[in-house]
């Protein structure tokens, strides 16, 4: 029975790590209708930013979280118009144009990181690294726990912003009907920039955690692009609640399949489940997607 609960906890914590990436990613889709292929590379850049900050100052990586958030929000705010241009200057299939564009960006980022930083694997050590605590005989990894708590808090804050403030109302209006929102005097292009900035900020912060849980290297992004896709699609594109639920589901499938079915089937089952979810409930497990 211990094993069961340990597996459950491990699963929850795997999912928890991805919640922040997924929340930003799904909001980005909700408002901009863009699937960002480079999401994993933003995670990578976030991780590298922290790595270098830590390298030169020696301060604990987790202290830099707010700084990274701000830094990448600025990047996002000024990068978004470029993306906007890609989406709007083609009369058809904005989705596809954005996918191809971000695919190009992902190669560019990966290649640049490889050229500039080299191929080495790097490690981020935080004050939580390698520690764990026990509750009722179940070991809980401190860093993963911290990452999950952080992700949940940030996501809650984010939902509060979205549902309880004026800015949130504007964002939701823009997500619902961009044209009508425009008529109502909402500066939808600025809203889009803010949303993209928030998305990048969240993704880069997750990079800090992912980099310290796993490792930091130029090719690390691919894996996270994969998981982000899973979470966002299974949760229903654009639905934050759905993304959280799907993140947890991803973690649980991962964990229980590894322990009770066999490690080699993890991704097979994961992708089959995703495919079936799409066929049966294309709007995600909560039916709230676009």
């Amino acid at each position, binding site marked *: 029975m211990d094993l069961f609960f340990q597996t459950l906890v491990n699963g929850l914590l795997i999912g928890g790590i991805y919640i922040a990436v997924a929340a930003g990613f799904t909001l980005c889709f909700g408002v901009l209708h863009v*699937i960002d292929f480079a999401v994993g590379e933003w995670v990578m850049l976030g991780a590298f930013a922290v790595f270098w900050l830590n390298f030169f100052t020696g301060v604990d990586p987790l202290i830099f979280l707010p700084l990274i958030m701000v830094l990448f929000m600025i990047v996002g705010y000024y990068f978004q118009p470029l993306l906007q241009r890609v989406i709007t200057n083609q009369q*058809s299939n904005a989705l596809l144009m954005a996918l191809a564009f971000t695919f190009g960006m992902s190669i*560019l*980022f990966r290649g640049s990181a490889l050229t500039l930083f080299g191929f080495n694997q790097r490690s981020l050590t935080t004050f939580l690294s390698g520690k764990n605590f026990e509750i009722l005989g179940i070991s809980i990894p401190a860093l993963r726990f911290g990452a999950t708590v952080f992700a949940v808090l940030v996501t809650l804050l984010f939902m509060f912003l979205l549902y309880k403030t004026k800015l949130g109302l504007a964002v939701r209006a823009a997500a619902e009907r961009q044209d009508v929102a425009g008529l109502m005097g909402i500066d939808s292009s600025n809203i889009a920039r803010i949303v993209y900035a928030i998305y990048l900020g969240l993704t880069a912060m997750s990079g800090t955690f992912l980099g310290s849980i796993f490792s930091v290297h130029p090719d690390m992004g691919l894996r996270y692009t994969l998981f982000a896709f899973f979470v966002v699609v299974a949760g229903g594109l654009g639905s934050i609640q759905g993304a959280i639920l799907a993140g947890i589901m991803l973690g649980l499938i991962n964990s229980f399949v590894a322990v009770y079915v066999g490690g080699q089937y993890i991704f097979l089952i994961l992708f089959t489940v995703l495919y079936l979810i*799409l066929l049966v409930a294309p709007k995600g497990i909560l039916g709230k997607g676009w």
Partner: protein
Amino acid sequence: MEYVDNSQKRNLIWIALLVIVATVIPFAISSFWLRIVTGVLMWIGLAQSWNILAGYMGYVSFGHGAFFGLGAYVTAIAMSLGVHFIISALIAGVFTAAFAAIIGYPTLRLQGAYFAIATWAFAEAIRQIVLVLPFTGGAYGMRLPPMLNENFFYYMMLLTIIGTVAIAYYLMHKAKFGLKVKAIREEEIAANVLGLDVTRIKISVFALSAFFPGILGGIYAYWITYIHPDSVLAPVIADQMVVMTMLGGLGTIAGPIIGAVVLFMGNRLLWVFWGDTSFYLVLVGLAVALVILFLPSGLVSLVPRLGKKDKPKVDDQPNSSVTEHTK
């Protein structure tokens, strides 16, 4: 849409010239460049197949690499059972087309991003299946008997590619079928109301667009002699089909050809000159992003005659980018 006979004649002359050049190429260039050209041909075929589905019917698949990989594996398995290569490759094509028809039935009910991601999920699932099946060699991959005749593979690719392009051109630009397909792209619901058997058309197009990648996968397997889930079923294969087509110009015959030539050749040339660093990745990424940014209709839009998109006037849909995704 039908052009005047004059331009058709001119086109034919051009095509005839191209075909003659293509036929003598192996005798004019070194075997290294022949390999590169063979690779270009393969990518032309893959991009064109993807274009049939995405460019003409508007269904964006992110899992088309799966058909390439399946073709490679079917060919490898058939050949290991002693079947002749040509027959194996044909079996591979038929198999992938049939497979696409079966998988297409449920998948094609999805649209837009959902279809794209469903195909991607399905392709990843296939890769994982190949990794665990007992007769695919799993992570060890499969080796085929080497046949070291570069010319043979060049001509095999060439023939398949001519077939792909010719069929794409005929079906999508000449036959009535193409009109029906484009009707689905423009207004699927209306097409349905008008009495088109939308489901059947969609499945046929999906199967057709899987047929050629299956054969190409088979030729690739025999050519490279070693296949592995990470080489023939990697997501990057589908990604490249998409990017090449977008780069060249979606929904045109010339687009995927230009895109494949430019991207593959560009990639290889950069790799030849900067092969000992990873800097060429930077240039490839930059090139893709810049083209999408400044030439959204693809490189074909630089050559007005080729770039003539066979779409009804786009100007009829003002603000389409806004209205489209609000459904």
